[in-house]
């Protein structure tokens, strides 16, 4: 047993914070994808993460599918839930205003949460770590291999998304919807399909977040709301709609939370991130990387 040094301890908080922050960043990216296309804040975003974790437990632990099969199966299933959310809760609304759309996502989130409680009960579930649980010690900090998986998947998502939005026609069409839906439909882009795609994409990202974080923090039916709030806080912190902002916001949020819980008070762990959210809302509502000009034309 090594002695725990202060610097090692701080490094530990940093690593934990970046890991948790990567999850918040993934949730924030999911928020941004839907927000950019629809201007809706999808309060059910955290439920995708929860479903990702619990469905993965079902495929991998209960059914015994190997990781390499259970992972894509889970992502596909959660993606379908995301598409159903658009088709069943968002699309049918006849007089869509931002207010009613937000309320619809709140309704969907408690429905999904209730369904998850019905299926899985209230117990938290564990998932085997992807590559074992033998920790690596670096600079006096204990790093679980799973931490690296979480951070690695964030990097993969960032790379894939930037290729998608910059290099593919569909991605560019989605960005066009984000800039101006009317103009986009004039040049022949099917806006409804882009909205569906945005829900699918952000559900898939949520699922990845849920699958990778469950071996670290377990997963239970009611985790969605808090994940959504913190992911949203990360999105606001970075600048709503900005992808680099979402990553930066998530990592800052996670780090603040980790240091706050470690150095100040663990009981207030969940409060630190939210206090940061409030401070940002009050003093710089456009976020770190967001632009005030864009926030003026958006309805949210």
């Amino acid at each position, binding site marked *: 047993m090594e002695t725990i040094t202060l610097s090692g301890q701080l490094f530990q908080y940093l690593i934990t914070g970046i890991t948790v922050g990567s999850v918040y960043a993934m949730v924030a990216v999911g928020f941004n994808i839907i927000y950019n296309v629809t201007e809706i804040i999808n309060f059910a975003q955290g439920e995708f993460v929860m479903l990702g974790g619990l469905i993965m437990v079902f495929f991998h632990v209960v059914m015994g599918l190997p990781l390499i099969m259970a992972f894509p199966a889970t992502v596909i299933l959660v993606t379908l839930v995301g598409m159903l959310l658009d088709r069943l809760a968002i699309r049918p609304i006849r007089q869509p205003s931002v207010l009613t759309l937000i309320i*619809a996502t709140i309704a969907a989130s408690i429905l999904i949460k209730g369904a998850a*409680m019905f299926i899985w009960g209230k117990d938290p579930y564990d998932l085997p770590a992807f590559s074992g649980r033998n920790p690596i010690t670096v600079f006096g900090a204990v790093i679980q291999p799973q931490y690296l998986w979480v951070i690695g998947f964030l990097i993969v998502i960032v790379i894939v998304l930037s290729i998608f939005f910059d290099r593919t026609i569909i991605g560019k069409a989605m960005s066009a919807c984000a800039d101006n839906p009317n103009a986009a439909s004039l040049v022949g882009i099917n806006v409804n399909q882009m909205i569906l795609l945005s829900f699918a994409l952000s559900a898939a990202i949520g699922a990845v977040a849920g699958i990778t974080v469950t071996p670290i923090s377990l997963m239970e039916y009611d985790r969605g709301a808090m994940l959504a709030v913190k992911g949203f806080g990360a999105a606001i912190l970075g600048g709503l709609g900005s992808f680099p902002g979402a990553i930066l916001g998530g990592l800052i949020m996670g780090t603040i939370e980790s240091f706050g819980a470690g150095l100040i*008070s663990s009981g207030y762990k*969940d*409060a630190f991130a*939210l206090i940061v959210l409030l401070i940002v809302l*009050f003093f710089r509502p456009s976020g770190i990387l967001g632009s005030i000009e864009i926030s003026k034309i*958006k309805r949210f």
Partner: protein
Amino acid sequence: MSRIGKIPIAFFALFIVAFPWVAHEIPSIENYTDIMIFAGIYCLITMGLSLLMGYAGQISIGHAAFYGIGAYSSAILTVQYGLNPWPCIIIGMILSAVVAVLIGAPSLKLRGHYLAMATLAFGIIVYIIFNEEAAWTGGPDGMTGIPGLSLFGFEFDSVEKYYYLVWIFVFAVFIFTVNLIQSDTGRALRAIHVSEPAAGAMGVDISRFKILVFVYSAVLASLAGSLYAHYLNFINPSTFDLFFSIKLLIMIALGGMHSIWGAIIGAGIITFLSYEWLHYFEEYEVIVYGAILLLVTIFLPKGLVGVPGIVKGWFRE
């Protein structure tokens, strides 16, 4: 809802006055008077909140916090400092007003729905404080021994007496709110609701009115919280969680967010659902609430209050 008819108000008053007598005579609904106390307490919150949603077009997902601030102000000041309950209720309301200005002013000056997010975060923070500051709040176990209410030696010590006390408050707030809607303030609020830019162009100070409504709704929620604490004589943090804030949203969406009657009907129905009719579902009642909220949003955008209009529409065709 520019005019509120006198006849519906009279019927409503008669219903409220007669309710305990009728309920007392019918054994199967004997406990409904007790539930109606909670319905009244929730009505106090939803009347303010429906002004915020229906007129200012803003949602709050943190009103459980103001409800809690009222309840805990009453509980802490009476139990730990031995104060008379009435000033505690007032202190809670003032505290809620101050906090509402601090939360509301920055977020309501911005366009869009930042208030939703600010109140969501604020609600969760307050909930954590209720749990963590055990020296003041008793932590997750809550506080017991909160005194009941009395006025000039008259004790509100039975269900019936407390029922009338709560509903007198509801009525006073109802009349005040109706007058508010029909005053210059109400006209300004309606103008804001129809078109913010147009209202602004006519010289209506939009953010000021929004803040005003938000503070009004927070003060009412605080009053409701105090009445809750003094009735049950016991509170714990779980009453004031995020789900309660969402339940308030459901009440207003179900009743109809553009009408004060909607606020009352929605509060009544959801109260009876949660205290009486949904026992069968136990904890899965959350699915029922989600379904109600989703179905109402899709099929009844004006809530139950809009149903007569829809039915009339059918006959006209």
